[in-house]
């Protein structure tokens, strides 16, 4: 009985995962547990293995060893698209939007269980069209949330960098995630927009009970919104705790500033 309870509160349980590409070992023996409806940030310097970790969690790359348990189910060896279908949805560094689809189409593409995605659905136009209308409605609602309504029927390729970030986030939400993996959503975004994104995320957490795991470069940015911060360097977790406690961690300071103090 106790075991079940534990599973219920842990959305994601990462057990000792490692991966190597040739001589490079971007993720080594990483373990952590993410509890339901929490907001965790993964920080670390360039090359720490943050994105590699996301690639493993989302199934884009496969682990060499270890287990990834998502909502009670081992997912380390199943296809990326199936992981997304289970509700573990990721975004990419630098907002990958589909330029030659319209902004609304970018969102509508993400909807799960669309009968029109299946070739057999071609033979059932009525089901297809009613689903499509609903998808469009939801897309417009999402666009309204982030202030992109007026671009709905423009090619997404005309959006600015910041607008692309907003679209990328909205699109991930359209996929009905239980847990979102956001890869540097604030990189290269101006401070005003960072504030806006943070507000959107905070609101989502309240309204939709989504669990967040987010990669960020800069601890400052995610300080207030995070319940917990995991610090990575050289493929390993070097610190894990409340945001404030991270500031005082010597290992973290070393990782970011180099180990000058030891030399001195």
């Amino acid at each position, binding site marked *: 009985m106790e075991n079940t309870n534990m599973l219920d509160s842990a959305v994601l349980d990462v057990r000792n995962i490692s991966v190597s590409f040739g001589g490079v070992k971007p993720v080594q023996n990483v373990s952590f547990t993410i509890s339901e409806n929490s907001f965790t940030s993964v920080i670390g310097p360039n090359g720490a293995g943050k994105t590699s970790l996301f690639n493993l969690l989302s199934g*884009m790359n496969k682990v060499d060893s270890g287990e990834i348990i998502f909502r009670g189910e081992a997912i380390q060896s199943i296809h990326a698209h*199936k992981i*997304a279908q289970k509700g573990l949805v990721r975004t990419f560094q630098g907002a990958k939007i589909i330029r*030659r689809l319209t902004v609304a189409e970018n969102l509508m593409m993400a909807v799960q269980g669309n009968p029109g995605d*299946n070739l057999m659905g*071609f033979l059932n136009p009525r089901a297809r069209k009613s689903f499509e209308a609903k998808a469009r409605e939801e897309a417009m609602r999402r666009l309204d949330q982030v202030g992109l309504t007026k671009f709905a029927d423009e090619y997404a390729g005309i959006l600015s960098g910041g607008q692309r970030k907003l679209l990328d986030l909205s699109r991930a939400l*359209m996929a009905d995630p239980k847990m979102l993996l956001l890869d540097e959503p604030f990189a290269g975004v101006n401070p005003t927009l960072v504030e806006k994104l943070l507000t959107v995320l905070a609101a989502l957490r309240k309204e939709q009970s989504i669990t967040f795991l987010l990669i960020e470069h800069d601890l400052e940015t995610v300080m207030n919104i995070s319940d917990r911060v995991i610090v990575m360097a050289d493929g390993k977790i070097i610190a894990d705790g409340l945001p404030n406690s991270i500031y005082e961690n010597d290992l973290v300071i070393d990782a970011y500033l180099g180990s000058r103090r030891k030399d001195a």
Partner: protein
Amino acid sequence: MEAFIQPGFWIFVLALAGIYGVFSLGLQIQYGVGGIMNFGHVGMMAVSGYTIAVLVIKYQWSFWWAALLGVVLAAFLGALLGLTTLRLSGDYFAIASIAFAEIVRYWILNSDDITGGTQGTLAIPNPDGFGGYTDQPDVILNWISDRLYPIIGDEASRDLSMVLVVWPFFFLFIWISSRLQKTSWARVLRATREDDDVPRSLGKNVFRFRLQTLIIGSVFGGIAGVFWALQFALLAPEDFLRIVTFYGWMILILAGASRVKGLFIAAIFFGFLYGATRFLEFWPLSLLSSPERAYLRVFLIGLVIVLLMVKRPQGLFGKRQEMILE
């Protein structure tokens, strides 16, 4: 130049345009929607054309049943090509697809017992042991001509019958394909054209979408092979050289890869270019012999593709904006 004012010339152009048009419909959905660069499309046409010839001549099948099996085999081959090589990324798949069509052609060339080898389908023995020829395509087309004769007299020709068979199908397929391209299935496919990772991360099985697209395109290639067999009755391995694939590509690029509805106009333009070169008898082209002039079409087609790429990369009917988005 008189040739160009004869109705017969234009009917021939239309017959050719219809066959190549259906052929290029396959490339259109593969490349224009799915971004799959298939340079081996001619292989599908060869497989279905030869399937028909062998079944009809050697095993005395009816043309239509043989045609059905030809298209099924082309689809099957598309699936085989996809399952083995579609996981390769863009350029690598393009190269593999060329090799695939060449394998098909070499197999036909070297399997004398089945396909007649270098001599073409004439060398396929029929059950009486004689050289293979089937009058089925003639019977089908003449049946139509006979019915047209009372109405239009001497203008009723084999080519005209062919046009009347091919073009309704061509328009039907354009319509079906354009409907298909409005579905959310096609939307996902367009996304895979730009970036595999995005649809994958949103729960879409990218490989399934691409494989389906390759098979649908192969079906169009196979159907073009049926029309080819109907038009020419005799097939030879050199009918299915790589250049045929690029004829299809020219039509596609001319129309604009993402615009299926413009395809028929581009197909007619191609048919004209293909059919007209041998009739260009003015100086200095008159210095060349007729077969030499026929090769001009290859140059002309190359020239058209280059000019389009420079001046109008979106094709005649494409949207320029789609080409410049970053």
